[in-house]
């Protein structure tokens, strides 16, 4: 976890973030600045950094360690020369998603959206899309917790319009 790039002897500044459930996380400044929401908090107010606690209203403390870990690793990947082999990034990403339920994935997507980090948001929404690829309509509804609001007639009409797309779906 220790980054070899921080060779300077000055102590890395820390920023305190407060998750939705009140738990505090002390985060190195560059990692915290990966989040646009945190960054914008300090714009024009850099002096406040030391003692301000940034409230993250939509992020539960359950997901904070994983999210911070993602930022740390990916910012290290970006900085490294030569760039890390694709397999290394892929291995990290796969490990990140392992054992995450669909519900946890959705919660993290909402967290990434709130934190306004494109890289994490893109990664997670892509992962969600991969989980519903080839799945039946019923599966996708359950995945998102969406209720069917079509009348049977409407549904039949849409099905007829898109008949060509319904072959070859996986069984749930």
């Amino acid at each position, binding site marked *: 976890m220790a980054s070899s790039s921080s060779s300077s002897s000055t102590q890395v500044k820390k920023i305190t973030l407060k998750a939705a459930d009140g738990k505090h996380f002390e985060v190195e400044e560059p990692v915290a600045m990966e989040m646009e929401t945190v960054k914008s908090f300090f714009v024009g107010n850099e002096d406040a950094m030391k003692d301000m606690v940034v409230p993250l209203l939509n992020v539960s403390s359950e997901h904070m360690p994983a999210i911070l870990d993602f930022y740390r690793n990916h910012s290290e990947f970006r900085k490294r020369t030569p760039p890390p082999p694709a397999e290394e990034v892929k291995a990290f990403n796969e490990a990140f998603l392992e054992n995450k339920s669909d519900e946890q994935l959705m919660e993290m997507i909402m967290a990434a959206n709130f934190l306004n980090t494109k890289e994490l948001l893109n990664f997670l929404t892509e992962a969600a899309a991969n989980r519903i690829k080839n799945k039946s309509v019923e599966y*996708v509804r359950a995945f998102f917790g969406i209720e069917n609001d079509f009348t049977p007639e409407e549904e039949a009409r849409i099905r007829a319009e*898109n008949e060509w797309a319904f072959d070859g779906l996986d069984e749930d």
Partner: protein
Amino acid sequence: MDVAYALRNEDLLQNILSRLPTIHFASATRVSKFCNLILYQRKLETSLSLSSSLQFVVQEVLDEILSDPIRPHFTIAYIGTSAVDGMIGIVARTGKVKEASVLFMHSIREASVSSMRAAYME
């Protein structure tokens, strides 16, 4: 239900669904009215292949067009050896003018076509 509401509110559902290739997306239209609405947004897609094999050209162009969610109402195809001037249209979804300089095959949606006609007429 809570999650679905939040996803929908923040455009996140659209973000996820729009990553599905067309074939999968088309099936997602049946999930709910909102999902169907996302697909109804018009857009203009163009693709170009320079291969000399006709079969390969068609496959390559179709694969590219269908890699994003689109409901192709019809396609305009140009296959030939001489260059065409191209085509300029307004992408109805974004309102931006888009130019496809050389077209071999063109997959397009109705509204895009009517706005292209309008653009030509003006």
